[in-house]
């Protein structure tokens, strides 16, 4: 019994000493390891946007939470949606937090993390006489959609064949402007961006007018993208995403920007 106590006391002392030594070592590691460069969009409410010269948004906060979870220093680099893809390919950014899915850019061949949010695209319109839209009532309408996305595939598959004219845009802002100006009858926009815009003063003239329920790409699991040769980084990101969900940090961020949380 005495031997056991002595052993336990020794183990406690050893643990305490190693704890004292390992603290500074971790800090030193964090500083010595080069910072990760993370790409986000520069004007994409509510995901990444500048307000009072400060970068804000859901993707920005998620990036910070993941980097903290990974114990890495990260530099967030805002850029256009198209630059994100090129910079990730070129390796000038380590990973991109922009809600991509494997459907969006299958040919690019990136690796995708565990989903960090899940959303659907919705139809919006500025035409107050417009009522509920569906693939069957969309004939003759001009539909604005983000190019090279699951949304574009969906409207091409389910609306173009029914007589809708599809018009593609480079980012959500362009679609909102086109809808407001009446250049397109309806916009088919990623839901989270649409809700934020509809709640803003500029979006008050618009309304949500329908969904594509039960069809392909109805919901998309949105992921963080890394280059194919960064499998180790992807594993670390996955662990960080899972831990953020478990600790409640994810839900906290989610409710800051949205009316709900989906994980």
């Amino acid at each position: 019994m005495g031997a056991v106590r002595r052993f336990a006391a020794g183990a406690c002392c050893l643990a305490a000493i190693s704890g004292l030594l390992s603290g500074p070592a971790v800090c030193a590691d964090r500083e010595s390891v080069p910072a990760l460069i993370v790409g986000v969009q520069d004007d994409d409410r509510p995901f990444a946007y500048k307000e009072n010269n400060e970068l804000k948004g859901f993707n920005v906060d998620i990036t910070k939470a993941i980097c903290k979870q990974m114990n890495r220093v990260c530099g967030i680099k805002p850029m256009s949606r198209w630059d994100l893809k090129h910079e990730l390919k070129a390796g000038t950014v380590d990973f991109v937090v922009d809600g991509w899915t494997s459907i969006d850019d299958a040919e690019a061949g990136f690796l995708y993390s565990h989903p960090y949010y899940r959303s659907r695209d919705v139809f919006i319109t500025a035409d107050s006489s417009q009522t509920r839209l569906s693939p069957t009532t969309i004939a003759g309408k001009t539909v604005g959609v983000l190019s090279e996305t699951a949304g574009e595939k969906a409207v091409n598959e389910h609306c173009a064949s029914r007589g809708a004219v599809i018009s593609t845009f480079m980012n959500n802002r362009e679609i909102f402007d086109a809808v407001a100006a009446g250049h397109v009858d309806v916009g088919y926009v990623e839901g989270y961006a649409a809700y934020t815009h509809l709640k803003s003063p500029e979006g008050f003239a618009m309304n949500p007018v329908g969904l594509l329920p039960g069809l392909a790409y109805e919901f998309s699991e949105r992921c963080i993208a890394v280059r194919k040769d960064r499998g180790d980084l992807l594993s670390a990101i996955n662990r960080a995403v899972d831990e953020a969900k478990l600790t409640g940090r994810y839900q906290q961020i989610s409710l800051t920007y949205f009316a709900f949380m989906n994980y």
Partner: protein
Amino acid sequence: MTEEHRASPAPAAGPGRRRRGISLGRFLMVVGVPLLFILMMCGSLYLRTVGQVEQASANIVLQAGPQITRVQRSLINIENLKHFLTLMRYTTDERSARRAYIDAWSILAESVLDRFSTNNELFYTTLYNVETMWTARQRLDAAQEELFRAWNRVYSDAELTFVRDGVKNVRLHEFRPTHAAVYDISEAGTDELREIVAGYRTMFTLECMAQGGPQKACERLRGSIAGFRRALNEFDKERGDFLRVSKVIDSDVETLMGTLTQVEINGFLEEITDISSHANQSKQLIVIFLGGFMALAILLTVAMLFIVRPVTRMAESIREFRAKGIAPKELPKSPIFELQELQSVLPLLFTDMQSEKERNAVMTVERDALRSETLTDPLTQIANRRALELFKQEPRSAYGRVVVMMVDIDYFKHFNDTYGHRFGDEVLREIAREIRDQLRGRDQVFRYGGEEFCVVLSESSEDLARELANRIRECVRQMHPKFLEQCPTKLSVSVGVSDITYWTGQESLDALIEQSDQALYRAKRAGRNKVVFYDVE
């Protein structure tokens, strides 16, 4: 005893006879085999059920974390939805109501309340009802604006008319329009509006009557009051629509909440129900199992009473019969057919065995007598040559050193020829008796043939053989039987003695006989009445 059994044999259970009892074979087929089968089935089912209980428990443990998280998330989202719907309904700020509408819409559109496809219809129905409520709210807002405008018209008309016509003492300030007071969709709010209308009417009527003339002024107010009433009716209608949709939404949300909670806990409930049903199943199986074992115990007890005990008793009877030769008077009765059959034939068997035993005893006596006759020389009453042959073949374990002596009566032919065969027979009888008298109990004497005797000395020695041989020779020489009185010649015998050797079977005895025969021949040649030992030289 034998006669008793023969006289009253046990009742035979023949096919034509009606038997009382049960068949062991049929009993085992009808009860034992199905019981065993049921027990085996129960055992395997029990093991399977225990496995299922384990699986279901493991599922609960595995699913508990994610399910609890999902329940928490769904509850938070639905609370948010309720909050936004309340804002949509009650806020006077149009922008807040609009934002609340978009948020409520997004919660339902994103299906974040749950991920179960079975609820999608409910989500979409609720979503469309929220859209309808938003439209109703917008129409209600418009109706309220119109009402407010109508009220203002009445008020300004009244003010203008009263001032123009000089009507005094009218509490007009009590009816000053206040925007915030109008927008109240509760019943109380509507009543208040109705009171305003009634108040105006009363006031104008009373004042007009009191003034006794400003009938015209009252007439002028009728138009704006009618407009106010129309706006109020329109507001009432829109408010009714809005309330109706609100109630539908309330019901939808209640259903959603109930369904979600139900769906979320259904996962647990299914597993728990599964466990409970498996546990009940295993309880039933245990009951069947215990029942089966009890039945088996009863079966074994019955078997002990009706099979084992009678069989044991029968075995004891057979043992007793073998030991004492006494057949049992009565055997224990068994209700088992097969044992009854056995019990019915057992006394017959005893009887037969008894008879056989008695016949065997008689045969043994007869056989012994016959054997004795066959192996005994009838004249001398000693063992004959055949007995010697059998003696040689009998296995012996401890016979020790053996010596064979051949004893031959000297001049026996002479006695036989001279005094007759009867005399010769007497001589043979007397000498045989004399030889036998001289030998020890373990020694054997055989009449070898004619007047020749073969003596086998076991556990002997050379000195003993010499002593015995000489004693026989001397005793024969000294014999004086009555029948010898007429004979002047004395009787004598020649004895040939073999080497002493260890008994190894027939071969060694044959060799010794040969040796003693040679020695006898030498004794004869040496003059008779001699004892000669075998000498190789």
